C-alpha cells in the first residue's frame, strides 16, 4: 500500500477548513475582519478623494453611492461583527476555564456562513447591477430605506446581493450568539459563579443576547424585502400602498441594538486592558455588570431616535428622546469606572493601554455629541448631516476600533506566542490618533455648515472646502497608521520577541496557559475563588476573594 505524498500546505489548509476548534475559528474570524477593514478603508479613502474638493469627478455618483453603501455594510457586518465574534470565540472558553465552545460544529458552521456571505456581498462588484441598472455593488445605503430598494427605483440585482449576503452572514452571527450564551451559562469552571466571571464574559453575554433579540428582525425584514423584489409581495412597496415607515421601524429595531452589539465588545476589551496596565482591580465590578445589563435592555427601546425627522408625534418624540438620554447614564458610569480604575494606579503606557486611553477619551466625545443628537429639535438640524457621520465615527472608530487595536496588541502574544513591536505600535497609535481627529473632527463642522451626508459632491462657496480638505488629509495620515499596523503584524510574526505565558503580568485565566494555548486549552480544568485567579496566585498574602 502506498500513501499519498505528504503535502504540508494542503494539509495545513485542510486543517483550517475542517477545524471546529474555537481558537482557530476565532483567528479566522479576526483575520477576515482585518482583511475587510482594509477593503472598507480603501472605499472610504476613495470617497475622501472625491470629496476633497468641490465639484470633483473622481467617482461617478453611482460609484460613490456604492462605496458608501459598501463601506458602511462592510464595516458593520464584515469587520465589527467578525472581530467581536472572533474575540469572543477565542477568549470566552479560555477565560471561563473551558475546553471549547458548547457547540463546536455549530461554531464552524457559523463562521463559514459568515465567510461565504461576505464573499457573496463582494461578488456584487462583478455580478450586480445598481440603482440605475449599471454594473456595480449595492448602492442603496447600509440602512436600505424603502422604497428606494423596490424594483422600481433599484432595478438591478445589487440590492438582492445585499439582502442575501447579509441574510447568510447574519444567520452565522445568530448561531454564534446561541453558542456564546450557552457556553457562558453552562461551561464555566469550578468556582466561577456569574458574579465571578471576568467582566469580558459579562459584556459578551449581554452582547450575544442582544444579537439574539435584534438580528432576527433584520433577517425577517430582509426576507420580506426579497419577497417584495422577487415575488411581487407588497410589504414595503409604497406604490402599492405600503407604508415605508415600517421598514424604518423594523430596521432600527435591529439597527440601534446593533450599535451596542458593536461597542459592548469594545467595552469588554478596554475593561480587561485598563486594570492590567493600571495595575489595579477594575473599579466597581458590580456596577459595571449592572450598567452592561441595563444598556442591553435600554438599547432595545431607543430605535426611533434615528427617525426624529420622519414626522413622529411630539409624544413619541419625547419618549424616544428620554430613553436615549437614559442610556447615557450607564454608559457614563462605565467611563467613570474606567477612569477610577486608572486613578491611583501605576499606569504602564504600552500600546494596548495607549489605545485603551485613546478609546476612553474619544468615546466620551462621541457620547456627548450623541446627547446633542438626542435633543429632538437639534436633531432636526443635525440628522443626516456630516455631524452625524462625525459622531458615529467617534463612537465606532475612536471608540470601537481603538478598543479593537487595544485588545489586538494585548492578546496577540497569547494567540501567536510573539509580542508585537512596541515602537511600531506607538507610532501606529499616534498616526491613527492624529489622522482620526483630523478626519472626523472637521466633519462636525461641515455638518454645522449644512452638508448632508451621502452626497457625492458639493458646491464651492458654501463654507465646506476647508473642512472637507482637512478630512481628506486626515484620511491620508491614517493610511500610514494602518500600513504600519500591517507591517508590524507581519514583522512580529517572524521576528517578534517571544511572549511567554504571561507577558503583561495579567490576572485572568487565559494567561495561565501557554502562548499559544494547546488544543483543549487546559490539561486540567482550573478552579477559581475570585475574579482574578492569577492575582490570587501571585499574591497569596492578599487574595481578591477576601474582598469580593
Amino acid at each position, binding site marked *: 500500500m502506498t500513501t499519498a505524498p505528504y503535502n504540508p500546505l494542503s494539509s495545513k489548509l485542510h486543517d483550517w477548513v475542517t477545524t471546529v476548534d474555537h481558537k482557530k475559528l476565532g483567528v479566522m474570524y479576526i483575520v477576515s475582519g482585518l482583511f475587510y477593514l482594509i477593503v472598507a478603508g480603501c472605499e472610504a479613502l476613495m470617497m475622501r478623494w472625491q470629496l476633497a474638493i468641490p465639484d470633483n469627478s473622481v467617482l461617478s*455618483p*453611482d460609484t460613490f*453611492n456604492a462605496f458608501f453603501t459598501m463601506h458602511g455594510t462592510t464595516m458593520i457586518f464584515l469587520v465589527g461583527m467578525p472581530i467581536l465574534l472572533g474575540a469572543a470565540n477565542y477568549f470566552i472558553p479560555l477565560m471561563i476555564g473551558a475546553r471549547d465552545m458548547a457547540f463546536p460544529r455549530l461554531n464552524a458552521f457559523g463562521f463559514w456562513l459568515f465567510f461565504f456571505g461576505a464573499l457573496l456581498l463582494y461578488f456584487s462588484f462583478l455580478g450586480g447591477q445598481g440603482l*440605475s441598472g449599471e454594473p456595480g455593488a449595492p448602492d442603496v445605503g447600509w440602512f436600505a*430605506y424603502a422604497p*428606494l430598494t423596490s424594483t*422600481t*427605483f433599484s432595478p438591478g440585482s445589487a440590492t438582492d446581493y445585499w439582502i442575501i449576503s447579509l441574510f447568510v452572514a447574519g444567520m452565522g452571527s445568530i448561531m454564534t450568539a446561541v453558542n456564546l450564551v450557552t457556553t457562558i451559562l453552562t461551561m464555566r469552571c469550578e468556582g466561577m459563579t456569574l458574579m465571578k466571571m471576568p467582566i469580558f464574559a459579562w459584556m459578551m453575554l449581554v452582547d450575544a443576547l442582544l444579537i439574539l433579540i435584534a438580528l432576527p428582525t433584520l433577517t425577517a425584514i430582509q426576507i420580506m424585502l426579497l419577497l417584495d423584489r422577487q415575488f411581487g409581495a407588497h410589504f414595503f412597496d*409604497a406604490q402599492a*400602498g*405600503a*407604508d*415605508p*415607515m415600517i421598514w424604518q421601524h423594523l430596521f432600527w429595531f435591529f439597527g440601534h441594538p446593533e450599535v451596542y452589539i458593536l461597542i459592548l465588545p469594545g467595552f469588554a476589551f478596554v475593561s480587561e486592558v485598563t486594570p492590567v496596565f493600571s*495595575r*489595579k*482591580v477594575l*473599579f*466597581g*465590578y458590580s456596577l459595571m455588570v449592572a450598567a452592561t445589563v441595563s444598556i442591553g435592555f435600554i438599547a432595545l427601546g431607543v430605535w426611533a431616535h434615528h427617525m426624529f*425627522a*420622519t*414626522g413622529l408625534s*411630539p409624544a413619541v418624540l*419625547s419618549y424616544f*428622546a428620554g430613553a436615549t*438620554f437614559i442610556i447615557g*447614564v450607564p454608559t*457614563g*458610569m462605565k467611563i467613570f469606572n474606567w*477612569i*477610577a480604575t*486608572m*486613578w491611583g*494606579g*501605576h*499606569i504602564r*503606557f504600552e500600546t494596548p493601554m495607549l489605545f485603551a486611553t485613546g478609546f476612553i477619551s474619544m468615546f*466620551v466625545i462621541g457620547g*456627548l455629541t450623541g*446627547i*446633542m443628537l438626542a*435633543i429632538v*429639535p*437639534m436633531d*432636526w*438640524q*443635525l440628522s443626516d448631516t456630516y455631524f452625524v457621520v462625525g459622531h458615529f465615527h467617534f463612537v465606532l472608530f475612536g471608540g470601537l476600533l481603538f478598543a479593537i487595536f487595544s485588545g489586538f496588541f494585548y492578546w496577540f502574544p497569547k494567540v501567536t506566542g510573539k509580542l508585537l513591536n512596541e515602537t511600531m505600535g506607538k507610532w501606529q497609535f499616534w498616526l491613527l490618533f492624529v489622522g482620526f481627529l483630523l478626519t472626523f473632527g472637521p466633519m462636525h*463642522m461641515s455638518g*454645522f*455648515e*449644512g452638508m*448632508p451626508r451621502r452626497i*457625492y459632491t458639493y458646491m464651492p*462657496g*458654501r*463654507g465646506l472646502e476647508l473642512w472637507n480638505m482637512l478630512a481628506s488629509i486626515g484620511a491620508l495620515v491614517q493610511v500610514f497608521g494602518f500600513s504600519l499596523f500591517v507591517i508590524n503584524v507581519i514583522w512580529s510574526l517572524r521576528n517578534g520577541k517571544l511572549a511567554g505565558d504571561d507577558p503583561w503580568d495579567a490576572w485572568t485565566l487565559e494567561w495561565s496557559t501557554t502562548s499559544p494555548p494547546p488544543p483543549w486549552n487546559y490539561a486540567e480544568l482550573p478552579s477559581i475563588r475570585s475574579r482574578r485567579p492569577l492575582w490570587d496566585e501571585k499574591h497569596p498574602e492578599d487574595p*481578591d476573594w477576601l*474582598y*469580593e
Partner: protein
Amino acid sequence: MLGASLAVASPQNLNMFNPVSPAATPIRDLFFLVFGVIGLIFLITEGALILSIFKFRSTGKETKEPPQMYGSNPIELAWTVVPVLIVFVLFLVTTRSIYSLDMQEPPEGALRVKATGHQWWWEFEYEDLGITTAGELHVPKGVPVFVELRSADVIHSFWVPRLAGKIDCIPNRENHMWFQADEIGTWYGQCAEFCGTQHAKMLIRVISEDKKDFDSWATNQLLPAVEVPTPMNGKDTFLSLACVNCHTVQGVTHQGGFGPDLTHLMSRDTIASGAAENTPENLTKWLLNPNSIKDGCLMPNMMLTEKQVASLVEFLTTLK
C-alpha cells in the same frame, strides 16, 4: 461656540447657527445651552482622565502593586445620580422645545405650500394661489409658511437650515413643517435623505421678498405662457417632441406632470433643481445631454439635433 463664530459668513452659507426664522432660532439657542452642559461634562471627564494619565503614570521603579480599590458605594452612587439629574433636566428642556416648535395646523394668515420631492427635484404648489413651480420657493418676508411635505417616489427630506430643521417627505404620508423668513434674501437648502443617484444635486432655494415683490411674482406666475412668435417656431418644435409628455406649459400643453412645470421657467435662477444657473448656454447643454450637468438624472437624452435644441431654447427663453 466654534460654530457660532463661523456664522458670520457669506450669504450663500447654510449655517444653522445663523437662523433668520422663528422656527430655527430657538434651535440655535438650544445649541448654546447644550454646548454649555456637555462642555462642562467634557471638561470634567477628560480632565480627570488626563490628570490620571499624568499623575499615575508608572515610573517603572515601583516595587509593589498600588493599593487595590474594589469600588466605593458612595462614589458610584454619585456618578449614577448626578447624570440622572442632568439627563432629567435635558429631557424637560427637549420636551418643552418639541411642543413649542410643533405646529399641527397652519396659523392665521399663513401661506400654505405643498412641497413634493421627486427624484431629483422639488415641486412647489401654492394651492390657494393656483401656482405650481419647481426648485425655487418664493415666500413673502415675515409671513409664516406652512409646508405640507409629500413624495412622488422615494423618501426625501426638506431642509433649509437657516429657516427650520428638516422633515422627511415620505410616500403615502403627509408630513408638515413651518418657517418664517424674517429677512429678505435667498436661503439655500437641499434634500437631506439619500434618495438615489443624484441625491447630491437636489437643491432648494427659498427666496423671501417684500409683500409687493412676492405679489407681483405670484401674479406673473398665474399668467399662461406668453405668446411670443419666434423665428424658428420653437413652440412647434416643443409640441412636436416628447417634451410634452413630462412637462406642462400653462396655456400651451397640460399633459405632463412627471417633470417640472415650465410655464415660467425664466423666472427661476437655476435649472435641474439648482444644479446649474439658468442661462441659455446651460439650457442648450442640458437639452443636448442632461447627464452632462446631472449624471444619472431622469430626464432622458432625447438625441436632439443642434438645430432642434436652438429652437427649443429660443422658445424656453420666452417663458418669463
